[in-house]
């Protein structure tokens, strides 16, 4: 057992680093179904309809959520200049999260599902996850309440907001306590389906970036006021957007209009946040040559820009009519979760692990390979799927029989699959690298704690 400063954070990262390679492998196997539909036969657990929810749960709730909570467990005490309220509770929550994801994976593999997208886990697991979220929130709120740092840095705003609304979103989306029929069920489902992205992955990811960006470029954040505008705009605009997923269905017209308008309104928080990040980076870009952590963070920001310009564009009624239901949307979803927030979480892990183990990252060439494979593979993946989506949409528009455009997408699916292989290899390298950092018995002089936030960033 290595000596680590905060075992709860390390435990979260270990869990995340088991789920990330596994999750992307599941994704790759699912993608294989598109080019070799009969490559597994007679194994229910490996049929596409069951691998897809497992892929989502491993990546979204296993990898990203564990990395996020681990990062918050590290960052919030640092920003508050106080230890985590209960380290014991922190370790138990890590174990609970790890066990929960495995339970969900086993249930979903065996067809125990609620059939609600992103909320497939059965109801008893929903309740456990809700209790778990409350435990995490209590731990972090008590840490903030006991703080010795007076000013609240903007990352704390993001984390606080998230820990308030994410349990609410989760309980509404999984509807453990109420019953809705027909289209009302769909409305609530997509409220959840979009807000798990908007009010959990986005807000924590942006909070992590607000923490890391000034530290990595060694410069205060460009504008604290801009970051506040971004925070409140996310809080206002994100929640009503979910209905844009069912624009073509007969749900109330006013609700669809509200979703479209607020989707376009999302440009406000996104552009303020990115303006802030890129101006913080102004004239410091060359630092990304040597610093792979910063490279991952910047890659995340760039993909965030693409995601969030694409999102409002495709939420408008006629663009949605054309590209909805196609692989374009799959590409967009991966742009958010893989391109943006996975890159940000990777940056957080690369930043935090040396600081809790007191050792530098085991292998810099491995970091370089990880960066190149991830970004190259993902860009290839994204472009191929976007083109596939356009092929598919044109097939519908001109009334082609379905099997014809399925065949027409084959080359794009192969390219996507090859990109997927690069991503998977990159993540295995990443996991290997971090485990070697933790467990290789090499003693290096201890890295001093980096400053939490420079004085200018604290000027609220």
């Amino acid at each position, binding site marked *: 057992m290595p000596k680590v400063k905060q075992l709860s954070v390390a435990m979260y990262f270990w869990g995340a680093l088991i789920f990330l390679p596994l999750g992307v492998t599941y994704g790759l196997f699912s993608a294989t179904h*598109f080019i070799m*539909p*009969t490559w*597994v036969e*007679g194994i*229910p657990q490996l*049929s*596409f*309809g069951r691998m*897809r*929810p497992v892929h989502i749960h491993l990546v979204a709730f296993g990898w990203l959520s564990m990395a996020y909570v681990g990062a918050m467990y590290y960052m919030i005490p640092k920003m508050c200049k106080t230890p985590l309220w209960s380290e014991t509770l922190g370790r138990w929550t890590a174990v609970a999260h790890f066990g929960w994801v495995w339970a969900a994976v086993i249930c979903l593999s065996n*067809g*125990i599902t*609620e*059939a609600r*997208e992103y909320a497939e886990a059965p109801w008893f697991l929903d309740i456990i996850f809700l209790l778990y979220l409350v435990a995490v929130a209590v731990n972090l*709120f008590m840490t903030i309440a006991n*703080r*010795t740092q*007076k000013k*609240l840095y903007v990352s704390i*705003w993001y984390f*606080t*907001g998230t820990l*308030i*609304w994410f349990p*609410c979103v989760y309980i*509404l989306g999984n509807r453990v306590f109420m*019953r*809705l*029929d*027909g*289209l*009302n*069920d769909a*409305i*609530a*489902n997509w409220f959840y389906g979009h807000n798990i992205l908007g009010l959990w992955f986005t807000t924590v990811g942006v909070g992590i970036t607000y923490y890391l960006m000034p530290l990595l470029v060694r410069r205060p954040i460009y504008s604290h006021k801009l970051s506040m505008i971004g925070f409140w705009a996310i*809080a206002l605009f994100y*929640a*009503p957007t*979910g209905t844009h997923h*069912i624009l*073509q*269905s*007969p749900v*109330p017209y006013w*609700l669809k209009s*509200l979703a479209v308008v607020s989707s376009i309104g999302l440009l406000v928080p996104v552009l303020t946040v990115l303006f802030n990040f890129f101006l913080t980076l102004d004239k410091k870009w060359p630092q990304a040559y040597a610093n792979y952590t910063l490279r991952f963070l910047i890659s995340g920001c760039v993909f965030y820009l693409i995601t969030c310009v694409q999102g409002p564009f495709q939420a408008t009624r006629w663009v949605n*009519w054309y590209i909805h*239901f196609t692989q374009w*949307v799959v590409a967009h979803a991966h742009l958010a979760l893989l391109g943006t927030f996975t890159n940000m979480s990777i940056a957080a892990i690369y930043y935090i692990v040396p600081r809790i183990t007191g050792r530098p990252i085991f292998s810099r060439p491995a970091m370089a390979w990880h960066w190149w494979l991830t970004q190259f593979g993902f860009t290839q993946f994204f472009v191929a799927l976007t083109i596939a989506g356009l092929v598919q949409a044109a097939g519908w528009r*001109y*009334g*082609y*029989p379905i*099997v*014809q455009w*399925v*065949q027409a997408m084959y080359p794009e699916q192969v390219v996507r699959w090859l990109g997927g292989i690069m991503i998977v290899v990159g993540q295995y390298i990443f996991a290997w690298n971090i485990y070697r950092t933790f467990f290789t018995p090499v003693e290096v002089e201890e890295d001093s704690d980096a400053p939490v936030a420079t004085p200018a960033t604290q000027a609220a």
Partner: protein
Amino acid sequence: MQVRQKDYAFLVAFVSATFLSIVFMTVILPNMVFQPQPSDYVEALTVQELRGREVYKKEGCWYCHTQFVRPQDRNEGPVALSGDFEFKEETVQLAKEHGYQLVHLLGTERTGPDLSLIGGKMPDAWHKAHHANPQAFNPGSIMPKYNYLSEQEMDDLVAYLQTLGRKKNALSRQAHETFRGNFNAAYQTTTEGGVSLGYLIEPEVPWEFKQFYEKKYKNQNPIKYENRYIAGARGIYNNKCAHCHGVQGDGNGPRALSLTERPANFQSNDPNMGYDEWSDIKWYWKIAEGAGPGAVMPRWNGVLHPDQIWYLVIYCRYLAADRTLPLPPRDEPLRAPELGGRTFHYEGDDLVVSYPEPPPGMPQSDPALDPGLTLQVDEELAETGQPVGAAGN
């Protein structure tokens, strides 16, 4: 160091208030004001069908197959109504008794066809065999094989699939069949028994028809009714149409066995059909726009070049009307337009087809170049493009 906690309490309170107001607006308010009544097409599910629904959920069918048509899509049949996704009271009771939780299965991505109107289109046996081996039925399909489902699960799943849109399909097919002889009337009818047909957006004249008339063709088939062109069209017909309609156009193609509604028999003597009296424009419209709501035949518009459809028109007329023109023997390499290489251009109203030079080794089989294959043709017919007995438009 002692710090004030008041700021933080404000933050927490303000964030909560903002969020709860938005939740009220987007989730609770819609649920309060939006309570559609079950529409006429909703059916009470039997116990077996509910079990099938569970199989559908369990296997994740809804990841690839949606259950709502896009209203703007013309070729998807009747549009979905709000009440279609409600459940009748007895169904809810039944579901509660059996412990099933009803979930919307609208779906999220469409890798396969939309299933909201699948009910009644194919017989049960077709569905079962298709689930076990989709590629056997549809060679390009990427659907996984569900051959691991038990007999019971397969039966349940098929029973559930047959409920989807069954009533709607039956009603729209009934409307279609009522007006089968008079297709203009069929497409002008906006509602039949309360059915809102996806096709019938404009009550007066179907806009596709109107638009079609305004095109340059003006009921003029650019392809002459000559045996060489008919022989050229045979390749398209055999590729695209013969699976259902049969090589002889008698509606007995291999796929016809799996369809509940038999494909059109062009040789039928039924006076209501009167295929031998159909005008060119009517044939064209039928091929281009499909057989109508609730039917399996797709729209070939866009899939086939208009000239290819015109070729099919003369071939269908050949199958329906006389079948007397001796065509080149089958072992001749076909000069089907879709085999490529040939070019079209218009000279005035005439379409001129130019064939490329055959590659070395190929027999000189182009009937235009081979006088041995040019057979005696009725002069009037070749001039007017109208077969004997075919009604003009």
